[in-house]
């Protein structure tokens, strides 16, 4: 198990956004997380990635307790994420954004003065890696454009690229194909499939058809709880799931 979420609770005011959620995710799988709006999917992602501290429960990542670590530490431990509403560095080019998402350089100013040679070497390797990823995602030709100049679909690809840049063991994707045309949506998931042998994915997505095609396991949330889980086939036949989506 690479990710183990145990009995997480999170309330906002009087509302329980997460009401005892437990999830176990195996290495090198793609897991889908579905559920109606407000069912707690993004809250779960935010809690796992450190953006929200849970009121109760634990999160283990690769056997390490990451329950209340800040987001940057979770990211440095090898779990990166994208956001539902695509977040970009507006003032930066595609390549600059990618480089900022790498974790090989230190934040301080001292290496600039005292360790320039090593710095130049890592910079060169980072650029090479960024270009490879951009090439893989088919947006390499846009590398010198400002991130905001990309189309909506390309921005989604860049977000994915930034999440991959740190060579993470696990990636959380929050609606990676929302608002993207079906052809490109499939392409994005095909890219994720190709990465599966190297890492693990947890994907929140409203496009259930696409999840059914690409996921190994699907979790269904409703009102802050996991109400069903299983292979796409199992979930599709599950009565509760049909209720959640059709009967509410």
């Amino acid at each position: 198990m690479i990710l183990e979420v145990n009995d997480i609770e999170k309330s906002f005011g009087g509302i329980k956004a997460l009401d005892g959620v437990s999830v176990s995710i195996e290495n090198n799988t793609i897991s889908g997380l579905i559920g109606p709006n407000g069912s707690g999917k993004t809250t779960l992602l935010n809690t796992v990635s450190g953006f929200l501290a849970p009121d109760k429960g634990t999160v283990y990542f690769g056997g390490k307790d990451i329950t209340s670590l800040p987001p940057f530490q979770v990211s440095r431990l090898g779990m990166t994420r994208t956001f539902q509403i695509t977040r970009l560095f507006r003032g930066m080019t595609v390549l600059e954004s990618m480089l900022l998402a790498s974790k090989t350089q230190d934040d301080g100013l001292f290496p600039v003065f005292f360790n320039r040679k090593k710095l130049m070497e890592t910079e060169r390797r980072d650029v090479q890696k960024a270009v490879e990823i951009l090439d893989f995602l088919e947006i390499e030709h846009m590398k010198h454009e400002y991130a905001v100049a990309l189309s909506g679909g390309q921005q989604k690809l860049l977000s994915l690229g930034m999440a991959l840049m740190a060579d993470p063991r696990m990636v959380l994707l929050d609606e990676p194909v929302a608002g993207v045309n079906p052809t490109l949506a499939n392409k994005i998931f095909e890219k994720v499939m190709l990465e599966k042998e190297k890492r693990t994915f947890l994907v929140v997505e409203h496009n259930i058809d696409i999840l059914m095609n690409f996921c190994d396991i699907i979790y269904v949330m409703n009102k802050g709880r996991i109400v069903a889980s299983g292979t796409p086939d199992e979930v599709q036949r599950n009565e509760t799931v049909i209720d959640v989506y059709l009967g509410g």
Partner: protein
Amino acid sequence: MFLTQLVINSVVTGSIYVLIAIGLTIVYRVLKFANFSHAELITFGAYMAYIVNVSLGMDLFYGALAAFLLTGALGIATDRLVFKKLRKNGSNVISMMIASIGIGLVLRQSIQEKWGPNQVWYDIETRTFEIFGGSITEMQVYIILISIALILILHFMFTRTKLGKAMRGVSDNPQLAMASGIDTEKILLWVWFIGGGLAGIGGVFRGADTRLVPLLGWEIILSAFAVVILGGIGSFYGAIIAAYILGFAENFGVSILSDLSISTGYRPAIAFMILIIVLIVRPSGIMGKKEAA
């Protein structure tokens, strides 16, 4: 030549404004509030250099160095003691701004308690050079050269170092920066250190070019705000251009005022005349919107 002198004075004025405005703008860019206590960081820096230069009898160069380091540290201290706590509480930018005015008041009064309300001077030699019919002091040459050097260093930092890019990232989209593994609180420390340090150096320049009074920072902070808005709020390069524009506008403006027999007491108003015109004609400032760093 009178014109040469005006140009020299303008460049000196611009060089004093530029570091102060850059400090103000990088703090604004990341924290999104107008930090009025920047005025007292300027004054604090000037007096720190006074201790080194006059009380300890060392060269003003060391005074400027001390001003940079100590004012940077004071910037960090104001953040840790006040602004960070407000951030954690989710206070809005207006509360932050009001708090900064409060911090400024306390600092200003403390400086006045320590050094008194009267003006004091650095212990510096005033060699004067003649160029193209104008005169410039040795100190003014240093002010211009050090400003340019610091601008180049900052440009290098923002464009070439991970720290500078991380600062841009944090100001651009803090959530994404965190998700990218950037320790935003650590970056904020650097922002305050560099922003405060630049204010401190600016204070030393102003003190060396005129004199030291507890209101030193307050006298120029509004011009610095004008520079920041003129350049496009949060724009590094815009602030640089705007600082020199304002330097020229104030000096030439004063010359025109006296030719027209109007009181030169209107000098501080010139910045705002320009500011208002720019806001009407080009609300986002010279380098607003499209600018990156």
